[in-house]
């Protein structure tokens, strides 16, 4: 019906130029609020590195002979590839990538990075690209646990050792990959329960703000929390558990509903900091005072630890994203020909009113 207009075909490059101009103009003359925390953010270079939980005797380890790679010296021109799963748009991912980059430059190792932007197919091709670029070692933060066969086969064909961080891959350790470094999410749930018991005195009704449905972090943090509550404080009852999708806005909305319908609630366990901060916003909006309802969260971001300092949050269980030092140390030990554990569990610290102020610099 309508004739095709030539002009809009020509307009295409113009459109790109316009879009670029918009971005430039917008960020060029932008002026955001002065953020006080920005200044001390950079000064806190004294980062808390990761400590390893002492492995149980008899836990499995892996050597380069068993894995079938070749020895090399990390210091002499080795290239390491890092495949990140999600966009660096949240504090955890930002801190994770930064930690690997910092450690690489500290050790003088060349690091190639790729980001899958939360698309699993992209992550597989990212890994294949990194291999094609000739990396000697791979660090992967997997988006999913399954579906890694093609990528791992490609790595095995080139005899490139693989280490996975923060999420586990469903494959055989020391055969398909070397080892796995992460936090124990069930343990995080248990420790959150300890904080909750301490804050509430072990009696009363508590609520859980769940993470996204169908996510292993959600299931494991819930499992640990409920287990510990049932075992240590039978007086504490979980009367409400609704998802806040790991976002601040949903955390706020669900908490608003919660405090209306269950005014007697004593504590809220938020499975990440963002939802916990949403809960704080909801409590403030409802005219509650700091400490009226005890909030315990998991992650350890700066805003949440500041919340502990201000008295709104009773405890933050850390989920340490700084994998850099530990990942490189493991690679170094492994490529020298010494043995490394197959499962490396990180020691997470915690922020309570006692240490929040002095440890604020360690939060990410």
């Amino acid at each position, binding site marked *: 019906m309508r004739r095709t207009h030539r002009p*809009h075909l020509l307009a295409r490059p113009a459109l790109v130029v316009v879009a670029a101009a918009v971005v430039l103009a917008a960020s060029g003359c932008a002026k955001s609020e002065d953020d006080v925390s920005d200044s001390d953010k950079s000064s806190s270079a004294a980062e808390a590195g990761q400590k390893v939980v002492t492995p149980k005797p008899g836990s499995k380890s892996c050597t380069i002979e068993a894995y079938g790679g070749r020895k090399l010296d990390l210091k002499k021109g080795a290239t390491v590839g890092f495949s990140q799963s999600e966009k660096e748009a949240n504090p955890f991912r930002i801190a994770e990538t930064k930690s690997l980059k910092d450690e690489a430059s500290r050790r003088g190792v060349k690091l190639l990075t790729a980001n899958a932007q939360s698309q699993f197919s992209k992550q597989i091709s990212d890994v294949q690209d990194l291999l094609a670029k000739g990396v000697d070692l791979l660090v992967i933060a997997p988006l999913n646990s399954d579906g890694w066969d093609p990528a791992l086969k490609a790595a095995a064909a080139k005899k490139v050792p693989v280490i996975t961080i923060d999420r586990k891959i469903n494959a055989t350790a020391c055969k398909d990959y070397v080892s796995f470094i992460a936090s124990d999410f069930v343990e995080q749930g248990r420790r959150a329960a300890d904080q909750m018991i301490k804050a509430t005195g072990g009696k009363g009704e508590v609520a859980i703000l769940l993470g996204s449905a169908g996510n292993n972090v959600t299931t494991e943090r819930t499992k640990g929390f409920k287990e510990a509550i049932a075992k240590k404080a039978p007086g504490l009852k979980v009367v409400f558990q609704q998802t806040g999708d790991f976002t*601040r806005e949903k955390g706020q909305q669900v908490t608003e*509903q919660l405090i209306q*319908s269950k005014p007697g609630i004593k504590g809220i366990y938020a499975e990440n900091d963002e939802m916990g901060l949403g809960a704080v916003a909801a409590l403030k909006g409802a005219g509650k005072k700091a400490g009226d309802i005890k909030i315990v969260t998991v992650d350890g971001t700066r805003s949440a630890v500041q919340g502990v300092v201000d008295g709104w949050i009773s405890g933050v269980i850390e989920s340490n994203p700084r994998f850099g030092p530990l990942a490189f140390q493991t690679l170094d030990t492994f490529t020298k020909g010494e043995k490394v554990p197959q499962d490396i569990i990180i020691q997470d610290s915690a922020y309570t009113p006692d240490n929040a102020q002095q440890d604020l610099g360690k939060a990410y």
Partner: protein
Amino acid sequence: MAEATLHTAPLDKARLLQWLQTYGVYAGVALLLVVNTVITPHFLSAENFRTQAVQVAPVIIVALGMALVIGTEGVDLSVGAVMALAASVTALYLGYGLLPALLVVALFAAGAGLANGALVALVGVQPIVATLALMVGGRGLALVLLPQLKDLHNPGLASLGSGDIAGIPYLILIAAALALLIAFVVRRTTFGRRLLAIGDSRPAAQLAGLPVRRVLIVVYVLSALLAAVAGVLATARLQASDPTSLGNLMELSAITAVVVGGTPLSGGRVNIGGTVAGAVLIQLLTATLIKHDLPPSWTQIAQAIVIVCAVYAARGRGKR
């Protein structure tokens, strides 16, 4: 067509459907209110109604714009992205003060609306495709401008989000004022008449000499501006700008509110009262399920049932 169905179907059933189409959503809201009064503890309190109204206000505001677009037989999928864009632009320009920041947000939103409107009205792209482009690109732009959540401390913005006049939060007042304004525009202005005429039949409107392109562009700009208002209010309420998650799936909530409210997707008719009630219905439904601590998957199933019922009531009706 419509008359034929009226004659063949039994009269009572046809009447019932007609009634359901117009008043079903109000009946649904009334039913939920009664049920909740009986089964939900602490439901009948001013505090509770305020919470529900504050939570639904942004959805209502976005749905108003969506209703206008649907009235022209279009759809605007970019509203969630425009909300995110508004959030990140607010954070970016708040250093100049609240008012200048809001002006820049309005500029950006108008630009987004113009892009949508131009694609639909001038280039002749299908609305669903045109606005899909901005739905993807708009959020991308929002994230380029502000890659991560940022806490905001501006006192003006904070009071916009949590302040009130005589106990009624600004959010509710703004949503109510906008609803009245849009209802007035649809019913009493030439622009409203033209919008409906275009939705009824674009070729006929063109033949009648209506300024079809201009009206369409203005409708998409209005929709984007309303989405931006919702984005700013949601940001003000949260006191943080979160372009990653703000407005996620908002386009679907808005379309649901409009459809459940009795506005046909085929255009030519806009029911503003129904749209507001539709948003309230979904909010009450969600609130009921959350308050009784039912699994979140139930909320989705319940919403689906409401949508199917609404579409069933609208079944067999023509455009008018």
